[in-house]
């Protein structure tokens, strides 16, 4: 056994390696001062988009740790049009994730069919009390602001079906537009070549209201299944196909019902979707009241917004009624240009929206429910908002994402204003 060898080259080399590192920049990340740069796929915390949740309980059932708690009740929605049938839907009462049990496997996010659950890279929610790791719906909704855009896929990857579909659809649409020799202004409004721009193709047909988007077109479904598409994709496409067909049918009926475009034409529509209401503004009165009641600011803002939309719609409808129905021919286009009231998007957009976020689409921004006005360059942020939030002590990521959203809102407002002027 070699006990000691005279100190040789090996010993000197060791000294060399260490002294070399003495003059290198340390690899240390000064964590609380220097934020870690986490990739968008990081499994940090689970965010909930509660508007998307249909209380299907898939996440809760699939969770290996059973750490998701969901409560809901059924609510009857009055028929959307007279003579229609009333529908029931599930209303989410409670959605809680116990992060002291969660093993961060991501199965819930993966199985959610309506993209209500998202991963966010935020990780600083450690608590001294284990009970506080139970994040309720509000808290989970707040994480939603920090969800980054999913990254683009590496070269050679197959684009997700939703993206290819959307591109094909868009192309078809553009062709149709070219054929019809539409006005340049109308064309400029339409988003260009943007993948999965939900609602992009919808406005032209929005005048026909289609009920019950739950049905699917069996023929399409079978065909797609035979082509080897996954069941989910097939279902969503078949659903869309059904809606398309149904619209076709309704329009044909309308045309058959008579050529007069004014009076009767407006009758089957519940009008709500057609009245131009500028979203983004809030009803100050409602807002103040809710704040006084101690609601969270976000909640108050959302409700006030809804209130504003309601009021505005009522006002406009009244005006319309007064002015007669002469404007109805223009309305579809107008509806396309303006952010429609949120609930109007429900059925039609659902089909698009639903497919659009199988965890890997190329969509640059987390889906927005209504994206009627396309805003280029979502990378910019609203400096004012950003500074304000930073001053309030929010984390940079949250501030950035909110500021981004603020910028988009402002930009949309601006575009809308411009559009209105034109």
């Amino acid at each position, binding site marked *: 056994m070699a006990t000691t060898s005279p100190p040789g080259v090996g010993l000197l080399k060791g000294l060399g390696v*260490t002294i070399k590192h003495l003059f290198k920049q340390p690899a240390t990340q000064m964590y609380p001062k220097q934020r870690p740069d986490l990739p968008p*796929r990081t*499994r940090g915390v689970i965010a909930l988009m509660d508007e998307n949740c249909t209380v299907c309980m898939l996440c809760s059932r699939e969770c290996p740790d059973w750490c998701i708690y969901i409560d809901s009740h059924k609510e009857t929605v009055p028929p959307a049009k007279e003579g229609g049938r009333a529908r029931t839907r599930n209303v989410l009462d409670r959605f809680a994730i116990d992060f002291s049990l969660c093993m*961060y*496997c991501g199965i819930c996010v*993966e199985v959610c069919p309506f993209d209500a659950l998202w991963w966010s890279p935020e990780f600083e929610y450690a608590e001294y009390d284990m009970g506080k790791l139970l994040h309720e719906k509000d808290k989970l909704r707040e994480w939603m602001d920090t969800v980054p855009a999913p990254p683009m896929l590496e070269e050679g*990857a197959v684009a997700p079906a939703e993206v290819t579909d959307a591109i094909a659809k868009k192309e078809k649409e553009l062709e149709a537009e070219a054929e019809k020799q539409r006005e340049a202004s109308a064309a400029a409004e339409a988003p260009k070549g943007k993948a999965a721009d939900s609602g992009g193709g919808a406005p032209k047909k929005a005048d026909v209201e289609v009920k019950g988007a739950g049905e699917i077109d069996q023929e399409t479904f079978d065909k797609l299944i035979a082509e080897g598409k996954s*069941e989910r994709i097939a279902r969503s496409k078949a659903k869309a196909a059904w809606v398309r067909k149904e619209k076709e049918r309704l329009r044909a009926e309308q045309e058959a019902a008579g050529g007069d475009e004014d009076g009767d034409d407006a009758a089957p529509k519940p009008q709500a979707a057609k009245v131009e209401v500028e979203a983004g503004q809030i009803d100050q009165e409602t807002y103040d009241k809710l704040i006084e009641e101690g609601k969270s600011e976000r909640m108050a803002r959302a409700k006030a917004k809804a209130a504003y939309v309601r009021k505005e719609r009522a006002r406009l409808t009244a005006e319309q009624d007064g002015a007669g129905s002469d404007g109805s021919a223009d309305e579809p286009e107008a509806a396309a240009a303006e952010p429609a009231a949120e609930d109007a998007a429900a059925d039609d957009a659902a089909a698009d929206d639903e497919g659009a976020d199988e965890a*890997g689409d190329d969509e640059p921004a987390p889906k927005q429910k209504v994206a009627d006005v396309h805003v280029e360059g979502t990378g910019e942020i609203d400096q004012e908002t950003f500074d304000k939030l930073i001053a309030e002590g929010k984390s940079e990521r949250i501030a950035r994402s909110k500021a981004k959203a603020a910028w988009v809102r402002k930009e949309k407002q601006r575009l809308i204003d411009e559009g209105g002027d034109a």
Partner: protein
Amino acid sequence: MSDLSTRERIHPGTAPGEDINLEILGDGDFDTAEMSLSIGPAHPATHGVFRIVLDMDGERVVGARPVIGYMHRGFEKLAEYRDFRQIMALVNRHDWLSGFSNELGVALAVEQMLEMEVPDRAQWIRMLIAEWNRILNHLMFIGSFAIELGAITPMFYAFREREDIQHLLESATGGRLHFTYNQPGGLKIDLPKGFLHQSADLLALLRKRTPDYKDLILGNEIFQARTKGVGPLPPEVALSYGVTGPTLHASGVPEDSRVTEPYLKYDEVDVHVPLGENGDSFDRFSCLLGRIDASLDIIEQIHDHMPAGPVNSKLPKMVKAPEGATYVRTENPLGQLGYWLESDGGRTPWRLKMRTPSFSNVQAIPYLLGGVLVPDAVAVLGSVFFVVGDIDR
């Protein structure tokens, strides 16, 4: 201890200083008592809750009894109550240093039972991540083995490298240790844009940095004095205990299922298996370092081969393995990992038996520890690479 002092007496025949023999001999001129020393379950050298009871005569070990099971979590039983998607998130936790390779084993087993065609791109990406995972694992052991011999610095360098690799893998999988990136039939999602570029950059960086480990540890005379000839493991003994991985390669047996029974696309790349000659601690360590270089070579080849195409195949709503059984073995970073998957056609396996490399490797420890000194015992423990979670499961 009082017992020890009463029994100790100097042999009358020997005058002090007559024989300067510094070897501490058990059957020498002193009548001594044996002392049993319990190393672990919480001891720095066992990195985990592994316990080993040493019977010692002075500083010489005369017997060693590993005690395992402190970390038994019932993985095999748990797996019987998990569907395959959940099992993916489960198995990357028994050997937490090779999460991806563990998932891979289960995924391959399920695919084999379903006779599923896995897209080419998915297989290449799996190989890429698995090799990065292997480097990640080996770096950890390089650091910990050095620290067991008293060299504190390599640990920090190794963790710096690990951090870079983990960041890379996190950008694709979302996880740093528990990747959960596999699913039966492929991967959950394709790599993010720029991954292959980053991977190539990191490869170049690591190639620049690995010589540091050789200079700092492998070439160091003190290190050689501490490890050469310590705990030699003859090939036949290694095979009889079922030792695999770098510990086996050090004994000169080139058994590596990437070569002998290629899975994924390992038959399309050159896999170099570094071999040792004496099977001592030094060889085990140099095999480990050599495997990092070998993995870097494989990654380079994968970069050149990466095909385009889908990464997953369509799955039914609930993956159910058909009735039957299969055994899949993969070359995990620490050795051969085998999954015996038996299904009754339900949504969960009827039985999932794990053959983990760490469990087999520690079987050789009593053999290796016979007659060594305590410092050498640590050198042996550190060079028979094991993860406690992988032993106890």
